[in-house]
């Protein structure tokens, strides 16, 4: 990387895009530090790090994985509502294999991921080759997917004991939870593929104008299909770590409404739902905002019945902060007040 790009990166950071989500996150951390001065403390114990920052990163892993896939799908002008259900399917597939058979961990993981890719393939085919609206196409799997997972589990919570599999959800590597490493890995690979090859450009082109990019020679259908395969993969991985975390597959509840959190994260990162320009780092920043908010609510000791209200208010505030029009109106009002 030469100095020119790093300079322009610093400039970009100050001028736009990153500054407002970052400001929101910092504000939230400051609020937490005021409530509890030791909020950001990390200590090392029993060979692993403990503390709220580690918890936030660890707990945000499923949504972070979903958000990586969701960012790309939204960039192509689509949306994937089925990711929560796909998490349930992948978890159920792995749990049943672990309980019923004696296959290797590798086979279990391959089967789990394959189930997610299959779901992605179905979504992608419905959207790009059948021309069905993404919100409807993926809604199908959102509803039936959870049913399929419940069917696999026979309506029960399937629990298993497998040290290797559990390690993926609650183990540590070099003192850091494995889930955080997994998110980093998926992030780096997807970022390299999308930013170091022309793939990212194709995705943005298809999202901006699907038919125009087709005339330019981009295979828009394949690009869209790839995007849904990616969300399927990410959702399966998220389902695997969620199941590994509790040593069981709870088809009724795992990943419930997480598709909405993933979409929210992408929006908090400043991406437009209409497609086009995207940024995975910004979406991950959105994920951190959501999870910090969740952790804040949990550790602050506020009554449970206020949870959703507080979350909604905070999200509206962050979105307003990001709105150019809102900021202009505020500074306009402030200017008027100063003049009068």
């Amino acid at each position, binding site marked *: 990387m030469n100095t020119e790009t790093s300079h322009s990166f610093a400039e970009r950071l100050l001028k736009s895009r990153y500054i407002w989500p970052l400001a929101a996150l910092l504000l939230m951390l400051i609020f937490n530090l005021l409530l*509890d001065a030791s909020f950001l403390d990390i200590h090392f114990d029993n060979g692993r790090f403990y503390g709220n920052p580690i*918890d936030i990163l660890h707990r945000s892993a499923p949504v972070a994985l979903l958000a990586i896939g969701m960012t790309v799908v939204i960039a192509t002008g689509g949306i994937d509502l089925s990711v929560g259900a796909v998490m349930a399917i992948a978890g159920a597939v792995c749990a049943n294999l672990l309980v019923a058979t004696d296959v290797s961990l590798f086979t279990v993981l391959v089967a789990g991921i394959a189930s997610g890719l299959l779901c992605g393939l179905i979504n992608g085919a419905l959207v790009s080759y059948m021309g069905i609206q993404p919100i409807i196409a993926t809604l199908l799997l959102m509803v039936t997917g959870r049913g399929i997972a419940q069917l696999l589990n026979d309506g029960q919570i399937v629990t298993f004991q497998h040290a290797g599999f559990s390690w993926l959800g609650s183990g540590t590597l070099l003192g850091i939870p494995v889930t955080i490493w997994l998110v980093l890995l998926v992030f780096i690979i997807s970022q390299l593929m999308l930013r170091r090859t022309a793939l990212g450009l194709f995705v943005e082109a298809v999202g901006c104008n699907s038919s125009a990019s087709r005339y330019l020679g981009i295979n828009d259908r394949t690009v869209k299909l790839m995007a849904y395969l990616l969300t399927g993969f990410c959702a399966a991985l998220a389902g695997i770590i969620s199941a590994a*975390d509790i040593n069981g597959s709870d088809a009724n509840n795992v990943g419930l409404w997480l598709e909405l959190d993933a979409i929210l994260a992408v929006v908090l990162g400043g991406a437009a739902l209409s497609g086009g320009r995207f940024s995975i780092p910004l979406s991950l920043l959105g994920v951190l905002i959501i999870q910090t908010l969740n952790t804040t609510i*949990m550790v602050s*000791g506020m009554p*449970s*019945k206020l949870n959703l209200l507080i979350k909604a208010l905070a999200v509206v505030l962050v979105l307003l902060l990001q709105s150019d029009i809102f900021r202009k109106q505020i500074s306009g009002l402030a200017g008027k007040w100063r003049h009068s």
Partner: protein
Amino acid sequence: MNIKTLAMMSLLLLSQNAMAEIVVGFAQVGSESGWRTNFSNDMREEAKRRGITLKFADSQQQQANQIRAVRTFIAMRVDAIVIAPVVETGWTPILRQAQRSDIPVIILDRNIRADEDLYLTRIASDFVEEGVKAAQWLVENEQDECRVVELQGTVGSTAAIDRGTGFNRVIDKHDNITIVRSQTAEFTRNRGKEVMESFLRAEDPNSICALWAHNDEMALGAIQAIKESGLAPGEDIKVISVDGIPDYFLAMANGLANVTVELDPHLGAPTYDVIQRYLKGDTDIPKLIRTTGDVYTQATAAEEYQKRSQ
């Protein structure tokens, strides 16, 4: 003639063969949880024990199926109809139909929103009593200062509100026990673990004496969080819960949890008691009958697990 009417006719013929004994139609929700399966089995076994013929309909979580089943029961002229409703509303028309045919209806478990005159009685678990029993165990086993963290059920659900109320009612009379943290974990294992982790960060883990969870699933998640933080669940932090699912009995048998109040699945006996009383002409039946399950501790956990996991 379609299959449905054919099936109904054959059922009619069958039921006429057994005119002498009592015939009860039961529209069950489905088999979505282990608890529900136990509940269905109890209804079947208790009927067999009493020589009652039970017509069982699994409604697969759909009210439409339940209503269809009840309509069939009415056509069969059963002696009584038992409904474990999927949802609260929409029961009035079918209950009227049963009333016109002079068939008593008993509602089990979940509540319905309908005129009380339309059904004989409702038999359901007493959630408040479950909370009371859970708290009493703690009171009896903890004389010293005890800081409790609470995992609440889904906000606004009857089970969460009533279990919390019952528990608080008891500990309010005992100054040594206080709830220091309370947050919802939505009755699920994943959330139970996550919220417990946050409790262990926000409080000094060594100062927490007990965990009170509104159901076993959340408790099982929390047990893992306690284990991962390096403490011993069941010893360093006592684990108190409600429901009595097999996984929790296993945890108790392994010393990871202390006590659970069973969400009573044995609704068969009180149901058939009411039906037999009513058919003998007893009309003095209360509109709501409450049941509570027993308290189970580590002492019997291993053998209870054997019994329940078959």
